[in-house]
């Protein structure tokens, strides 16, 4: 495996950053991966713990087909190979929140093999290769120093989470900057929520990222990595990786070698700190789980899942390029979520103006959503309204600036585009005669500008356009003003 050549622009103090990701996506099944207990967040401790989850003697795991189906969906979504046969293995270690003394995971033969995730960073397309994605069960939670336990150094164990299905998605070390790392994570987040295999709730731990970070001089072999665990927001992810890169470079510059370690990010201090080093690394004694036969996935099963899956974001983006003539950047941006894509398609179809619809959604709509911190699902302006607004721009009824005012009104809850234009008097002045008389008035009072223009100063022309616009109270059609003014002056 050869890493892409270092790009000079991405170097940090002369060092190339190398990042690989391991992401745990909690699968959106109703029940656990190997038991019939409900998967639910926030319940009373140990309410959702069956004999299997408690690892009672005699209890046995039975595979939840829904979890497998979601793994197949992910495999299809990232263009990976869905293994005909994969194997569950036991990862053995002792910890109180790991009831069986081993975690059931996949080790040598994972269910999803290879694949890739592509995204735009600015307008540059970046592809991160995946190594694999494997199914595994989550552990329970240790409740340290829980008040309900009366303190005294006692810890409680909550096994509600034990056995929650996870898909661990592992990349090659293809990421070269914090920005790429965050963009990758966002893109993966988009994919898993788009296809509906994960609710994507990072605060509740449904989508947890571990970043393996190392630095090296360009061309040098891979540096020693440190793994930042459990990054549960994109903001912390950026802070943590930025800090880790700076820290590693400082260490190396100070002559210290990096020790392989697992680190945690502390949002309060903005620093990462080591939890354990390689010396503490356990021997997990992986071996195939004899309680679970190999997971066999027929081609028919894969085909059925494929046929039932919603159109994938990248497929939809390709279609937007092909059918609507959008640039790839627009198409990718509009397919951030199912709701956004659907909103675009409805607006484009209703207005017949795909590119304008795209611009409006990517800029104005996105800005307002962001400002009000709401999702596309809750957008107050219907696609038909936006389409009507675009229609009035195209037929020259209103200017772009005026359109923004109309859009504001729509956002505030007003309904009729034409009524708003009327009420606010935003109709563009398209009457040549009326415009010409305004222009004549402006020219009469601005001899200086005329002289400067004639002397070759373009700025003076713009000043005159501005005067005309002002005199028309913004209603003049700027394009038309340009043409008429030029005709008068030349």
């Amino acid at each position, binding site marked *: 495996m050869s890493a892409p050549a270092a790009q000079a622009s991405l170097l940090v103090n002369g060092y190339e950053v190398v990042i690989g990701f391991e992401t745990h996506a909690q699968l959106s099944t109703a029940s656990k991966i190997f038991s019939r207990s409900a998967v639910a967040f926030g319940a009373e401790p140990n309410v959702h713990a069956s004999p299997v989850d408690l690892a009672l003697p*005699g209890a046995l*795991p039975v*595979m939840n087909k829904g979890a497998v189906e979601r793994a197949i969906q992910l495999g299809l979504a990232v263009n990976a190979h869905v293994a005909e046969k994969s194997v569950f293995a036991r990862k053995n270690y002792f910890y109180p929140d790991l009831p069986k003394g081993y975690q059931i995971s996949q080790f040598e033969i994972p269910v999803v093999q290879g694949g890739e995730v592509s995204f735009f960073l600015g307008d540059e397309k970046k592809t991160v290769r995946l190594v694999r994605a494997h199914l595994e069960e989550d552990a329970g939670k240790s409740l340290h120093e829980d008040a309900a336990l009366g303190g005294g150094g006692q810890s409680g164990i909550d096994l509600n989470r034990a056995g929650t299905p996870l898909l661990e998605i592992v990349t090659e070390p293809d990421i070269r900057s914090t920005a790429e790392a965050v963009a990758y994570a966002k893109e993966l987040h988009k994919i898993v929520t788009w296809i509906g295999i994960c609710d994507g709730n990072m605060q509740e731990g449904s989508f947890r990222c571990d970043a393996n970070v190392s630095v090296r001089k360009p061309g040098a072999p891979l540096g020693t990595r440190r793994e930042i665990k459990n990054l549960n927001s994109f903001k912390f992810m950026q802070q943590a990786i930025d800090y880790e890169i700076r820290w590693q470079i400082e260490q190396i510059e100070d002559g210290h070698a990096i020790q392989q370690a697992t680190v945690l990010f502390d949002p309060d201090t903005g620093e990462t700190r080591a939890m354990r080093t390689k010396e503490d690394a356990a021997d997990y*004694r992986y071996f195939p789980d004899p309680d679970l036969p190999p997971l066999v996935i027929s081609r028919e099963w894969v085909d059925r899942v494929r046929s039932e899956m919603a159109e994938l974001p990248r497929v939809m983006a390709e279609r937007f390029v092909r059918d609507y003539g959008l640039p790839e950047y627009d198409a990718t941006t509009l397919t951030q979520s199912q709701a956004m894509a659907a909103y675009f398609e409805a607006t484009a179809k209703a207005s017949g103006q795909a590119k304008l619809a795209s611009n409006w959604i990517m800029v104005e709509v996105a800005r307002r959503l962001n400002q009000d911190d709401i999702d596309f699902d809750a957008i107050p302006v219907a696609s038909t309204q936006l389409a009507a607004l675009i229609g009035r721009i195209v037929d020259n009824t209103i200017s772009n600036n005026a359109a923004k005012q109309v859009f504001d009104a729509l956002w505030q809850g007003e309904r009729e585009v034409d009524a708003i234009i009327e009420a606010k008097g935003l109709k563009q002045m398209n009457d040549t005669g009326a415009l010409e008389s305004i222009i004549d008035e402006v020219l009469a009072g601005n001899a200086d500008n005329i002289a400067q223009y004639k002397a070759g100063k373009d700025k003076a022309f713009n000043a005159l356009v501005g005067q005309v616009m002002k005199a028309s109270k913004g209603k003049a059609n700027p394009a038309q003003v340009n043409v008429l003014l030029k005709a008068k002056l030349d």
Partner: protein
Amino acid sequence: MSEIHEWRVAELSRQLQAKAVSSVEVTQHLLARAEAHQGLGSFLHLDPERALAQAKLADAQRNDGHAAPLLGVPMAHKDVFVTEGMPTTAGSKMLAGYQSPFTATVVRRLMEAGTVSLGKLNCDEFAMGSANENSAYGPVKNPWDVTRVPGGSSGGSAAAVAARLVPAATGTDTGGSIRQPAAFCGITGIKPTYGLCSRYGMVAFASSLDQAGPMARSAEDCALLLSAMAGPDLDRDATSLDVPARDFTQTINQPRAGATPDKPLSGLRVGLPKEFFGAGVSTDVNEAVQAALAQLTALGATLVDISLPRTELSIPVYYIIAPAEASSNLSRFDGVRYGHRAAAYDDLIDMYQKTRSEGFGDEVKRRILIGTYVLSHGYYDAYYLQAQKIRRLIANDFQAAFQQCDVIAGPVAPTVAWHLGEKANDPVASYLADIFTLSISLAGLPGMSVPAGFGEGGMPVGLQLVGNYLKEPELLQTAHQFQQVTSWHTASPKESVL
């Protein structure tokens, strides 16, 4: 009329059906008998109240017209099957007083078939052992000679059946734990094809080998019991076979296809692996087995010489794979959620260490250590992986053999039951004594132990019959036909010995 405890399951079933006796009467009789013979050490838990309530219910159902063959038949269960309402210890201090909130599928099915549970039976700790001397609750004695071991790990089951405390019991077999104690105690037992009986609710020893089966006093009884025990349990045990439940009693009485009633085994090719008849087999065992083979010939069977070349390798392979799985399966006994926890400890690691040091016996610790070692980084390839490869070759050897024969026959064990304490300090000696049962478990094949006479010290000898996958009907038929012309299975230890 002979005494109630002399009746085998089939006979008891007929007597109950004829209302010659009630289930309550039978249950009371056997409870009293079990109580009187506590010295054998076979019962860990007797539950008279529960048993009588079940017996009463069975009698009431019979009066309502129910007539299932096992309705009202008392039995007892090896203590590795978890049972709601009765403690389950797996013969370990680790699970002293443990109460399971659910019941093992096998036990549940037997109860649904109408059986009455008298209680739980002693066994080697976590089913690890060949002599039942590894139980935290004391050894079990062989009813034929109480100075001898009953075999293991289902020693309590075998001894209770042989002593006629119960007409039948459940057992589990990981490397011979049904067949060897059945042989040592002169009873009939069958370890079915791996996956035929659900493992749900069996305290796991080695998951890829563990299999439940019935232990009783005839092949017919085993067929009756297995019909109730077997069947798919796909929602609870992913290794359960998706094979519909069968009535194994249907075919046992019939001659083989094309055979006549006087030669009912005509056409049956019995394979004799040369590795099962070598110098390692004691003379008394060999003589009894040879006589049994002659009997099979008289019934019409033909004998075929075969070879199972990797028989000796089955010992190291088994003692790598089984401990490897056990080391992981037993990790759950950590003192956190249930079972034994050390009374005082400094921190988490200390709690784990003390709990497990106190809770597990020596043999269990030995196997956890072996298993942990063979799965460790740097040793996995040389031990575990290599053992898995040889395991496949062993299974292939059997398939090659079954090209030449229908069933395989040989001794269950190289000797009759040894004396208590004789091998207690020599684990390797008792591992070696498993040589004729391990390969069958590694291959996942069905195997039976059928009483075939007596050897040294008047101790029973078992004939082992091995069939191909899911050939339980053929095995049971062969054993049943054998028992129609022999009386070894009807012999009982002297009451005075008990």
